């Protein structure tokens, strides 16, 4: 757990790119419950460091209950007890205006919401207020940020909806009157209408069928390119990552175990978990039966010592049972947390 090779801000500045929009360093967020004097800790986010550059779509993949949603909640500063941040920091940089999420006031955090940081949530079916028209949601969410008088504001929204192939009359509809795909496009419009620098997307296409999904993904990509925002895109669906994201982080049991350009990871996964994940994807012409990985992800209340993947890892060594591998650079733009890779001697 020592010496995490996280990219210090200095490293990033050295690159010809602009400063990253988001820097997460050594972040730890645990669910802490106290019942009858017994403290129980679930380490859902444990020592995570990552950065996201301007105009980049960063993908976060991992199986259910690996801590993806906890991580993005923590990044968004939307945590409530029993979830607590116990260490590390989350720093945004919106065009030279830095904000340390856990060292700033709730007012400062609220001031950036939707203007700079917006959200596309899981389950678009239920994210819109069921008893009010769509127009009201736009007014509540965006009116104060856009700073136009009401008629011009509505014109702005209508113009924005057209980009997502929605007609102006959806504003007068109630959420239940729209189809699933339309509702998802409305939430995308809602999340992008203020042209935020950073968008967090949590499984936005999971509830949609594959055909609608494809269209929605193309729209997300298009609108992201157009307004030049960065995006943290979370889904367990690797096919979506392959189509959409620029860089990919693989999460396992509360930690990021591998990170790198998406295409590189798909071409040559390094961490044994990533390798298994990618080999489990069906390929055209491949008729060999797929074999699942033995075992189940660990209970985050009592994670195994050392590397959390070692009980299921085909390459596990002695050191894996004792020590936790740190994320270390491995090739251009890539990091991996695996002794078998970084020390190069699979047993």
């Amino acid at each position, binding site marked *: 757990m020592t010496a995490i090779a996280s990219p210090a801000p200095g490293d990033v500045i050295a690159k010809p790119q602009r400063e990253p929009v988001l820097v997460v360093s050594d972040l730890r967020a645990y669910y802490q419950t106290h019942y009858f004097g017994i403290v129980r800790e679930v380490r859902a986010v444990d020592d995570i460091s990552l950065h996201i550059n301007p105009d980049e779509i960063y993908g976060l993949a991992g199986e259910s209950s690996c801590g993806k949603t906890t991580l993005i909640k923590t990044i968004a500063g*939307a945590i409530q007890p029993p979830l607590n941040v116990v260490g590390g920091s989350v720093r945004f940089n919106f065009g030279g205006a830095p904000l340390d999420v856990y060292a700033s006031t709730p007012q400062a955090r609220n001031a950036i919401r939707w203007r700079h940081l917006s959200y596309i*949530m899981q389950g678009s079916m239920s994210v819109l*207020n069921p008893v009010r028209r769509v127009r009201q949601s736009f007014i*509540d969410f965006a009116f104060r940020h856009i700073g136009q008088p009401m008629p011009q504001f509505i014109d702005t929204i209508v113009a924005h909806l057209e980009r997502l192939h929605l007609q102006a009359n959806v504003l007068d509809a109630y959420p239940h009157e729209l189809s699933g795909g339309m509702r998802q496009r409305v939430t995308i419009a809602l999340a992008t209408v203020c042209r935020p620098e950073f968008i967090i997307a949590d499984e936005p296409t999971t509830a949609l069928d594959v055909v609608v999904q494809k269209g929605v993904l193309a729209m997300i990509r298009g609108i992201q390119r157009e307004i030049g925002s960065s995006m943290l895109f979370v889904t367990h669906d690797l096919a979506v990552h392959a189509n959409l994201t620029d860089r990919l982080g693989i999460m396992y049991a509360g930690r990021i175990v591998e990170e790198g350009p998406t295409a590189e990871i798909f071409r040559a996964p390094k961490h044994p978990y990533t390798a298994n994940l990618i080999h489990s994807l069906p390929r055209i012409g491949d008729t060999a039966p797929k074999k699942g990985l033995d075992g189940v992800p660990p209970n985050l209340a009592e994670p195994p010592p050392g590397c959390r993947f070692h009980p299921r890892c085909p390459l596990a060594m002695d050191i894996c049972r004792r020590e936790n591998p740190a994320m270390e650079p491995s090739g251009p733009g890539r990091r991996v947390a695996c002794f078998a890779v970084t020390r190069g001697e699979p047993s």
Partner: protein
Amino acid sequence: MQSINVYIVKRLGQFFLVVFIGINIVFFVTHATPIDPVEYSIAAAASFGSTSPEAINMLRESLTELYGLQGGIWDQYLTFWKRIAVADFGPSVSAFPTPVSTLIGRAVPWTIGLLLTAIVISWVLGNLLGGLAGYYRESRILKAAGVIAMGLHPIPYYIVAFVLLIVFGYLWPVMPLGGGYQRNLAPGFNLAFVASVAKHSFLPALSLVLVGLGSWFMGMRALVSNIVTEDYVTYAELAGVERNRILTSYVMRNALVPQITGLAMSLGAIFNGAIITEQVFGYPGVGTLLVSAVHAGDYSLVLGITTISIIGVSAAVLIIDLLYPLLDPRMKAG
């Protein structure tokens, strides 16, 4: 638009069906009682002195007609419905010969005035406080309000009423002990009379509010605690929408839908009167009237009050059901 018309027609049909079945039950139940109103009235009249058998026979005939009891059960049934249609329930047995409709008409304004005020106040206060308590769960004042509401709620109503009466009517006599207004005032629309009515209804209304508040409070708080975990509330919070706005337009607005139904049910039950309240405070409303009618075996008065009450409850539910699509747009679909 088409489906909304179908909805209205369906609900109207339901209303008439419920009223029809309810009034039928009233008719058959009252006809199954062992008290014969005709003989009861004759006995009352005869006790004042000796009457000739011919006079009694004439009296019996005219009374039978007045009560709509001539002929077989089927004839009586038809007469009954004819009279209901013109709101004529015949003369009261106990207050003979005052018509039942006059007695009810006299009592209803008192009851409506008292209960409407008390129900509306407790509904508004209870929902407001309950909504705030469910949303701002960390607030100490609201937690205290919750404890008070929960403490008051299980106390039997008559205890609350008697305690109020003893404290404010006897130990510290700032409020009248009973009645609807000061006896020496002539009823009329003038300041002295209105002030007297307000003063006399204060304690009964307060007792109803104190007891009614708790259930609205707890109901609303429970609803709100569920709604705050809904995705649309989380989403609005992530969007940095102001908390007050989230509370009113997102949380309370959604929680109000079931609470309005509860309000309608309470308002409909007004026509039953608040029997215990009116008894404890000697209030001249429908509840007092109903109790004395039952005691006196006043068949026509019981029938009249019950019929009005059935129509009242059904009408309140009908009105709320018709307003429902405005409250919850999802209703339009079904």
